[in-house]
Every structure is written in C-alpha cells, then in structure tokens.
C-alpha cells in the first residue's frame, strides 16, 4: 500500500518515540551504550600508549563496535520484544505499513544507543585526558548521519532474522563477535588472513571507520562514506524484502505471535 508522506512520517515518528520510551529503562542500553564502550576503550588504550592519531582510530573503532553490539541487542530485538509482549500482530496488520513501524522503531533504538555511546566515550576520553583529532563539524554531522541510518538498516535486518527463532537472545550474543572479528573495526583488515580480507568490504561500519581513520590522519576522503551509504541502501532493500517474506509466511501458517 502506497502511503502519503504525512501519515507515513507520523507512523515513523510515533514508532521511534515509543521505542525510545521503552528503552529508557532498559539495562541493555546501559550495558551496550555505556559500559561496553568504556571497558573497550580502557583496555585498548591502557594496554599500550597510543599516539593521538591512534587514539582517534581507537575511539572510532570502539564507538562503531559498540554500535554494532547495541544494534544486535536493541534495534535487532524490536520485533522479538513485540512478540514477547503480544503486540507483534498489531504492528504488522494495521492500516499502516509494517515497514514504517520497523524503520521507526529501529531508528529510535539506534539513535538512543548512539547518543549513549557517544556520551560515555566522550566522558571517558575527557577523564583519561586523551587528545583526539577532530573533523570539521559539517563532515562530522554527515558521518554521524550515515552511521545512524546504517545502524538502523542493520537493526532491521537482524530484527527480521529474530522473527525466525525463539532463541533470539542466545543468537544475539552469537552474532556479535563475528562482526567484532571480521568487520574491520577494532581488528583491522590487515590483521585478518588474506583469504578473509574481503569480508570487511561488506560491512558499512567498516567504511565509516575508514572515513574517520583517514580524517584522523589528516586526509578527508568522501569515497568510504559514499560506499557506506550504498551498502546501507542494500541493507534496507534486503531487510524490507525479508520483513515482507517473514510476515507472509507467518500469515500463511497463522503463527504470527508464536512463530518458532
């Protein structure tokens, strides 16, 4: 069903706010958005004595790594939580498209997590007295925007995956580390075996990290950001197709809320 713009924006906005209200009391936000990035930053920056350029690289890698785990745990869990609360059917059978609901919820979760991660990392960097090399503000805003949209798309993808299993929580923890290792963030591509070095190319967060790493070294290259945006579009297409297929299958089996 083709929606006009205004009701569509209302659905997205309402879904976003609902998800953010729900997340205010979530322990996973504290863990993924505040505790994990601080711990990762402390153990990586205190194990060696990094240069300011290296600190900027580490901060970028830690922020994006934590964003990935928050995406899996929170944005990726929006549909799983709806099913737990018994509200999934209402989300996907209303007069408004389920795509808009999922997009709004995933965007709300991603923005909330990003705010928590950026705040906790900023406080930690200031407390440690580390010096960062900052981008010019306009580019920083663009990069953060691409990161938020990319995290949203990844969250939608993972959310659709969790519709297929009742063990979503356990799969969440299993999904986190493959990207930690092969995503080209804290562990750079050069540290991977040669035959696996193509995998980070498929991860948009890696390209965003490359953009920040270049900027930290004094080079501003928009190509990585453009590639990240392109990959994000691909994620959206796959996520929306997956959502449609999951809902169709659940309707055929009559198992929308008990689909496992």
């Amino acid at each position, binding site marked *: 069903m083709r929606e006009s713009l205004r009701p569509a924006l209302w659905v997205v906005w309402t879904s976003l706010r609902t998800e953010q209200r729900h997340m205010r009391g979530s*322990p*996973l936000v*504290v*863990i993924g958005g505040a*505790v*994990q990035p601080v*711990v990762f930053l*402390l*153990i*990586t920056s*205190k*194990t*060696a004595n990094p240069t300011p350029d290296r600190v900027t690289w580490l901060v970028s890698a830690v922020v994006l790594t934590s964003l990935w785990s928050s995406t899996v745990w929170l944005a990726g869990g929006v549909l799983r939580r709806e099913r737990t609360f018994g509200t999934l059917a209402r989300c996907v059978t209303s007069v408004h498209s389920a795509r808009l609901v999922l997009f709004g919820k995933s965007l709300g979760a991603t923005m909330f997590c990003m705010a928590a991660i950026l705040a906790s990392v900023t406080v930690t960097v200031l407390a440690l007295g580390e010096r960062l090399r900052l981008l010019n503000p306009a580019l920083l805003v663009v990069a953060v925007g691409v990161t938020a949209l990319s995290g949203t798309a990844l969250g939608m993808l993972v959310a659709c995956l969790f519709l297929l299993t009742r*063990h979503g929580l*356990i*799969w969440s*923890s*299993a999904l*986190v*580390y*493959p990207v*930690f*290792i092969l995503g080209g963030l*804290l*562990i*750079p591509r050069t*540290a991977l075996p040669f035959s696996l070095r193509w995998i980070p190319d498929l991860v948009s967060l890696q390209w965003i990290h490359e953009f920040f790493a270049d900027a930290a070294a004094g080079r501003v290259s928009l190509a990585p950001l453009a590639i990240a945006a392109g990959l994000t579009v691909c994620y959206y297409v796959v996520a929306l197709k997956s959502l449609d297929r999951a809902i169709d299958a659940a309707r055929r089996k009559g198992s929308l809320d008990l689909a496992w």
Partner: protein
Amino acid sequence: MTSLGSPVARLVAVPALWRFSEMLRLGWREYFAANPPALVLSATAPRLVLQTLFFTVLGSVVAGPGQRQFAFVGGLALALAGTNAVNVSNVPVTDKCYATFWRIRSGRVRPAVVFFARAAPYPLIGLGLLVLDAALVGPLVGLPGLTLRLAPLVGLYALISVTTTAAGLASASLSIGRHADILVTNLLAYLIILCSGGFLPPGRVGWIDDLGKVLPVSHGLAAVRAALAGRPWAGQAGLEVLVGLGWMLLAAAAITAQASRARRLGHDDYS
C-alpha cells in the same frame, strides 16, 4: 500437619543424599530446558570461541605478539564471565518468573543449598566449553604449544569457573528484587573483563587493580600465569578460593534474607 518428631528424625526421614541428588537433577533439567544441547553447541560454544579469538587477536593488534599470548591465556577465563556469571542468574530468575520460590523456602533444605545445587551445571558446562575453546582457538591463533602447556592447569580454570558462578549467583540474588539482575550480572561480567588482568595487564591503572582483587578471575589468572612462568602459584590460587568463598557467603546471605523477607511479608516476587 503431622509431626515427624525431632529435627534429627525429620532430617533422616528423607535421605540427605537423595534430596541432594534431586536438587542436582533439577538443576540439570532446568539448565537444558533453557539451553538445549543443540543450542549450546550451535550458539553458546561458537560465541565463546569467537570471544576468545577476538580478545586474542585484539591483543596482538593493540600491543604486539607478546600481548597475544597474554590475551589468549586471559581470554579463556574471560569467556566464563558470560557463560557463568551472567547465565547463572537463570536460577533465581526462573523461580521469580514461575512463582515457585515459596515451594523452595518452605521445603526442608535451606533455599541457599537448593540454589547452589541448581547452579552446579554452570561451572561444569562452562569448564567443558572452555576446554573446547582452548583446543580450537589455540591452534587457530598459532599458539598450539601454549595450549598444551595450559592443559595441566585446567584445575585452576575449574576453580575460576566456580568462583565466577558464585559471583554471578550472588549478584543476581542481590539485584533480582529490583529487576536489575540483567544490568548487575552484565556489569559484573564487564568488570571482570576490565579488572581481572585477562586483557589489560595488572599495574597499568591503580583503581582497576584494586577492584580486581575482590572480583573472581584475577587471582586465579595470576596463578595460571605464575604456573606458566614456573613461579609459585599456590598463594594466588588460595586467594581465588577465598574470593570465591566470599561471593558464596554473599549469595547465601542474599538468598536467606530473601526467604526470610518472603516469609515475613507474604510474597515471593523478590521485591
């Protein structure tokens, strides 16, 4: 209610060994209901392997090959923070979810003993997964020799597996009443990662070292590293035992206090 006579007579009316074996059996059944074997092998074990692989390779990236060996030895213990310290919260959470705590606190065996018996699968499964973890990750990161040298030290890792479970049970029992068990047990896991010397070598940040002294893993890992270096390790192992006993006492006190409150206030929702 018919009296069974003296307390001693009541105790021997049902053999203690049978009671304990039933509690253990319940623990295993509960564990596998929440973690079916297929899921343990397909999701939990891979997560453990990937986590250890991540910390080992990260050590190499951050501070070179020396740190890779350090991080591998520590990463094996850090993996237990998730499987034991976090997951053992299932034991009190299950009673809260299914409103079954009143049956435990009104039984003959003390609730703390029931909880400890039901928590028994966690250190055992955790240790089994750790052995698998070491066997897979060691050769994968080019450290097969170190893996073999660690084999005789599996007893120390078993000790760490018990102490992390005790800390997890204590944390969950203390926080479940405030609906904070997920937050507190995960916080404990990350504090172990930060403060135990599993990745960040001791001596870098004072307050982190101080905090690590009262957390599980720190002394056990120090014992493992001392044994690998051919230095005396029994003292550190003894300290790990003391830390574990401290957390067990805390867990027992929290469970006992909860049972007492539930009797007094007439509810079993831990709040």
